[in-house]
């Protein structure tokens, strides 16, 4: 594949996230601007942090003058799920030379999921992994554009976009369906275990605290099951 085809492949793969990031980014920009910050801050935060829910959470923290250690702790808690994403791409990213740090930096929920779905494409293994880089760049470009436009012209977006955030839920649902279809019984059982653990912890610990224990328990249980299967 030539450079152009790689880019076109990445662009095609990036479209599902485009609408969601533009609108969610705009929503973020609007909230940021309503809190008295200018578009420069939308640009700075979306370029430097690039983590949707944490960027939203940071606004009230900054407004109330939370201490820097508090902000650090909040970030580590809210974004703890990102600890697990790299495990799936250790080898792929390592082979990407100068692009390696950016790939790590830009590994959001959405980019992680879309990269997992890319990996199921038959042409992926033979492909120059520069396509992953294009994809990651495009995703961040959508996010940055959305948030800056939202901060600049939020009030001009007159139509009611309530519910557009469902496109991110739909994205994860679609990728999960693909994973299950391609991954056979192994994928089905690990997703089933993960979902059962997630629901258990959701009801036990509540919506704000269930994520990290769920991910840790999922890795633990899958690891134990793998050991048992290998032993027997």
């Amino acid at each position: 594949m030539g450079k152009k085809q790689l880019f076109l492949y990445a662009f095609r793969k990036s479209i599902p996230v485009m609408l969601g990031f533009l609108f969610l980014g705009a929503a973020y920009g609007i909230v940021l601007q309503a809190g008295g910050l200018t578009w420069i801050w939308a640009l700075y935060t979306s370029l430097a942090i690039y983590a949707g829910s944490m960027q939203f959470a940071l606004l009230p923290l900054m407004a109330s003058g939370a201490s820097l250690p508090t902000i650090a702790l909040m970030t580590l808690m809210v974004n703890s799920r990102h600890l697990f994403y790299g495990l799936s791409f250790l080898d792929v990213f390592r082979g990407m030379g100068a692009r390696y740090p950016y790939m790590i930096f830009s590994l959001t929920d959405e980019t992680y999921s879309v990269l997992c779905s890319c990996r199921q494409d038959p042409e992926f293994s033979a492909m120059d992994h520069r396509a992953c880089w294009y994809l990651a760049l495009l995703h961040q470009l959508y996010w940055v554009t959305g948030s800056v436009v939202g901060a600049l012209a939020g009030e001009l977006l007159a139509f009611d976009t309530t519910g557009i955030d469902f496109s991110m839920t739909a994205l994860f649902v679609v990728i999960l369906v693909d994973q299950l279809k391609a991954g056979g019984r192994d994928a089905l059982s690990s997703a089933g275990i993960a979902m059962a653990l997630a629901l258990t912890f959701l009801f036990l610990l509540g919506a704000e605290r269930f994520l990290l224990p769920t991910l840790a328990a999922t890795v633990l249980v899958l690891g134990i099951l793998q050991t048992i299967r290998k032993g027997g």
Partner: protein
Amino acid sequence: MSSNTYQLLAVAVCALCTFLLRLAPFALFRRGMPPFLRDLAAKLPAAIIAVLVVYCLKGLPAGSFSSGLITLVSVAFVVLLHLWRKNTLLSIAMGTALYMLLLRLI
């Protein structure tokens, strides 16, 4: 500390912590992964994405019955449409359109 300096630092701290979380697995396994972990990591995408789906739906138990129903119906619609047409964009666009429509009708 002026308010601008504080905000600059606050964003920088948040950015650094986010990056460190994303970096951790790469720093931890710099010499490659042990085979056990490699096999485990192969099973993680399906599991993690399943958790992300629950994460997106985490507001359901505390929310109202009708908003929960709208969400579940839309998710089921996305699953069925995707099994049928196998078109990622179509599934996401139609699912989101249905969700937004139901929100306004009910």
